[in-house]
């Protein structure tokens, strides 16, 4: 999209547009573009191809500097997914259960969204598809109780991982955010440690509000990673630049579709290729 042209002001403006269009926000975009301008000058870069390659290399280095692995070495390891309504938490958990089973791990799911219509049914379908035991209570039950039971179940059968689905909640609703701290306490009481992974699920189509979401959720329940879903669409989730640098929380997984296999480990090179496609 940006190649075979002169390194003029229009090139840099178009680059800004590509980055902002990917939802990086103007601040992040201008930081990258002004750094590139300086680099072009000091390294005497002469073609757009070289400039863009240089920018990509710099961005790749930044992304590669983070550890993006899931930590799952406790017994059991508890993974909690949190995030705003509709971002893809339940679907992601179903995919993750499948992935972990394929890796030879034993998994128990806690269907702890006891609020939304058919949320438990939805989690049950994914549990069945991935061949995973799912612990459920009834609609309206205490979410913490479901988590407690699921962990007890895992401990009883020596399961390695407990995946906890939570109800979607807007980060502006303080009563709902306080509920997350309660889930964390239940895990601590049941296992002696906080959840090993607390993953914020944000969807690629979301704009600048994703950054506010990340800050708010991190404050309510310290995050260990981000899942960026719906990257199979045309949005590029550029807010991850600000989120990673401001919170030091890495993107660990990406959702690339609605099927059970559509969950990948975050691949910086692939991400950048898509960004500049």
């Amino acid at each position, binding site marked *: 999209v940006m190649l075979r042209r002169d390194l003029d002001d229009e090139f840099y403006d178009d680059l800004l*547009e590509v980055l*902002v*269009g*990917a*939802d990086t*926000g*103007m601040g992040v975009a201008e930081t990258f573009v002004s750094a590139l301008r300086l680099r072009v000058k000091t390294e005497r870069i002469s073609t757009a191809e070289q400039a863009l390659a240089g920018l990509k290399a710099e961005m790749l280095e930044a992304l590669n500097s983070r550890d993006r692995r899931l930590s799952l070495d406790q017994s059991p390891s508890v993974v909690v997914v949190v995030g*705003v*309504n*509709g*971002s*893809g938490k339940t679907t992601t958990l*179903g995919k993750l259960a499948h992935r972990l089973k394929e890796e030879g791990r034993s998994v128990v799911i806690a269907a702890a969204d006891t609020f*939304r*219509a*058919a949320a438990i*049914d*939805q989690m*049950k*379908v*994914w549990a069945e*598809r991935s061949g995973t035991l799912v612990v459920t209570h009834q609609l309206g039950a205490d979410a913490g109780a479901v988590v407690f039971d699921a962990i007890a179940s895992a401990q009883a059968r020596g399961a390695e991982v407990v995946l906890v689905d939570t109800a979607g909640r*807007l*980060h*502006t*609703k303080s009563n709902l955010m306080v509920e997350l701290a309660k889930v964390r306490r239940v895990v601590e009481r049941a296992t002696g440690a906080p959840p090993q992974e607390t993953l914020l699920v944000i*969807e690629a*189509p*979301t*704009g*600048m*509000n*994703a950054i*506010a979401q990340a800050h708010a959720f991190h404050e309510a329940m310290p995050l260990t990673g981000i899942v960026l879903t*719906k990257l*199979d*669409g*045309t*949005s590029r989730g550029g*807010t991850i630049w600000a989120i990673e640098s401001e919170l030091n929380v890495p993107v660990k997984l990406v959702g690339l579709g*609605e099927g059970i296999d559509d969950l990948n480990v975050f691949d910086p090179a692939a991400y950048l290729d898509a960004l500049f496609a």
Partner: protein
Amino acid sequence: SLSERLTNIFDRFSGRGKLSREDVEAGLREVRMALLEADVNFKVAKAFVESIRERAVGSEVLESLSPGQQIVKIVNEELVRLLGGEQRRLRYSPQPPTVVLLLGLQGCGKTTTAAKLALAVRRDGHRPMLVAADTYRPAAVQQLAKLGKDNQLPVTLPQGGMLPPELCAVGVAEAKRLNCDVVILDTAGRLQIDEKMLDELKEIRKRVDVGETLMVVDAMTGQEAVNVATAFDAAVSIDGVILTKLDGDARGGAALSMRQALGKPIIYCGVGEKPADLEPFAPDRMASRILG
């Protein structure tokens, strides 16, 4: 806020007496930044600033004692004008039933909105029928069935291996049989680049006489709002937009992007998870929200 940032900029210039056009340019840059922060599309934000430039460099600003406030006033007025215009509620068909087709990206709130819309039309004295035409998402049918049951709303459920277009036709027939005069079709979330799923929407509109094709959009949608809207519009001609999750703190710039891209009105706002949480769109409130 924009007004604070403009005041800071113009206070620096005020010592020199009258503002110049260059000074106003700095202010216009701040306006563009504010719109981008609010998720207004890059091109839409640029065009917006162009459209207010003439007024911004006019005497109403240059000779004002508070030029920053004057620019904010101009921006607000123009936003309200662009967002408002044709303001309307749901259009009921002259020949019942009125069929409403809800479509949009995954997770934007269609199923929840379907139930909300049903309650809204019932408050208007109509008799709604919900059609659970999402045969893909796990437990999507159960979700709408539960919402229907909790709110005493009839729901047409899939029978046999029925595909969505046929199911929608069955839903309309069922509505006529039960004397319902509004049929709300809940469909599966889909990407605007999924040709097969766009064809499904076209097929639904062939099988059923759709009165209102409404795109449901998450208020926190970012830059791609324009591309998403225009692609859906090209496939099935959107009549209006329902913006959801406005009970959050997303600035909602997608609203302006959608309005510019489609030239169609935003009709309703989803302001919560409960079936009562649907309000008519208010352009003045949306404008100040976008401005921040």
